[in-house]
């Protein structure tokens, strides 16, 4: 029995669509029947439905053998996990957004402190980072920050708040991760799942 930690919300819908595209209907049917349950089980797999940022925690602790979460989440957390493969959904990108273009953005609000610090270090510009947990756009809208660093999919939320993408940065997508020990102790089951996930586009 393999246990897989999944992000709730939009990524779960994308994962179900992905499962259908590769004919893994037993899994997709089980996940589609979810209403408010946090644990879903079939004959061969148990899914834990958790917050995206907690997926690497469940995997690192060995409660889940595998996990699916965004590369943005992994970027911010230094976890002892195996980062096994790209999955073809959850596409978006990091972007620096502001009301208008500027020569420099000395104050930046973000949920992604690590990524933001690394970016400004790479361009050799000092930056003050204001950490926020959500509604980050507001910080630039009311001039608490010169810009925000956030993940962008369509850009609609930015535009609705009077912001524009100024600098497009790293691409993001869903990743399959594994617990360090489970990767070896359940290797044949994990490899079989990887092979099935690799069927996409084949």
């Amino acid at each position, binding site marked *: 029995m393999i246990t897989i930690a999944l992000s709730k919300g939009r990524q779960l819908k994308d994962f179900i669509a992905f499962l259908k595209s590769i004919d893994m209907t037993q899994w997709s049917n089980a996940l589609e029947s979810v209403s408010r349950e946090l644990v879903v089980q079939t004959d061969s797999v148990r899914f834990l439905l958790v917050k995206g940022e907690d997926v690497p925690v469940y995997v690192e602790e*060995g409660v889940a053998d595998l996990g699916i979460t965004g590369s943005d989440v992994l970027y911010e957390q230094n976890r*002892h996990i195996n980062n096994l*493969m790209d999955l073809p959904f959850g596409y978006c990108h990091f972007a620096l957004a502001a009301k208008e273009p500027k020569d420099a953005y000395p104050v930046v609000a973000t949920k992604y402190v690590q990524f933001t610090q690394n970016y400004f270090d790479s361009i050799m510009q000092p930056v003050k980072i204001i950490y926020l947990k959500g509604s980050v756009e507001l910080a630039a809208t009311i001039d608490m920050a010169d810009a925000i660093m956030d993940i962008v999919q369509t850009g609609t939320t930015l535009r609705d708040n009077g912001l524009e993408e100024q600098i497009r940065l790293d691409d993001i997508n869903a990743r399959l991760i594994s617990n360090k020990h489970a990767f070896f102790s359940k290797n044949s089951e994990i490899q079989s799942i990887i092979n099935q996930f690799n069927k996409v586009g084949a």
Partner: protein
Amino acid sequence: MLFEQNNQHILDKKHQEWEFLHHFHHLGYDLLDLSILEEFRWDSLSPDDLKSMTNRYTWQANDSLLSIRSDWTDAIVRYRKKYKLKTDKIAYSGPVYSYNKERMQFGMETFSEDIDTQQKSMKDLLDYLQTHLKQTVSVAVISHYSLLKKLLNKDELQDPEVRHLLRERNLDGLTKYLGDTHPVVQLMSQPVPDQLHFARDQFPDLKGPVNEIINWRNALEEKNIPTVYSDLFSLPAQSYYKGIFLQFYTDQTVEPIVTGGQYSSPTKAFGMAINLTDLTY
């Protein structure tokens, strides 16, 4: 505070430490105790010393850098560089501190390059862990630190991005970064059960380390550990680690309960330590 329980807990902990030292002394190990306070001189800090400073408590006093011991093997390696230890094997116990963590280490070092002698020491420690501390090892991981030194060039070995991708076994990341013909990518692309033999067959330089891994794996399988695996992509924490590196885990633990391996500083040696926290001690 419930003193009645606390008194007994403290007595049990001290007794365990005494019992460990007594047990290993009885097995022929000499006992060693070193100061928990370590002194470094600014003008003779080694690259390993510098690297270790990022995860230990340090402060400056006059022209010295002072630090609290963060790992017993590091302390013993430094001691052996400075002084002669006229013994074949030692045992020790004492606390170590890295940032935000306090651990008690019970350990041993064998100053011999003979593999049978080293494996006998490993079994001494494993037996003690199971019979006296009642800890059941469920996973043993074997790595060999010279594998990656042979597969990567010096720049690649130092590259933080390569090290990060290796730590996460991120095959598609490594493929993008190093190219699909790179030996590390070729080896990691093989099914896990085939990797050891692929390494031995395709890279003649790796034959020696692979045979050593197989030898140690056989020794561990004799101890009935349920999962024994070889991780070919581990990176050495310190430059003095030269050969086999072992990590033992109990059920559901992220941090290993036992770590250790072969090192060379200045002569070949083997050491292992049991890492005890409040949960296990």
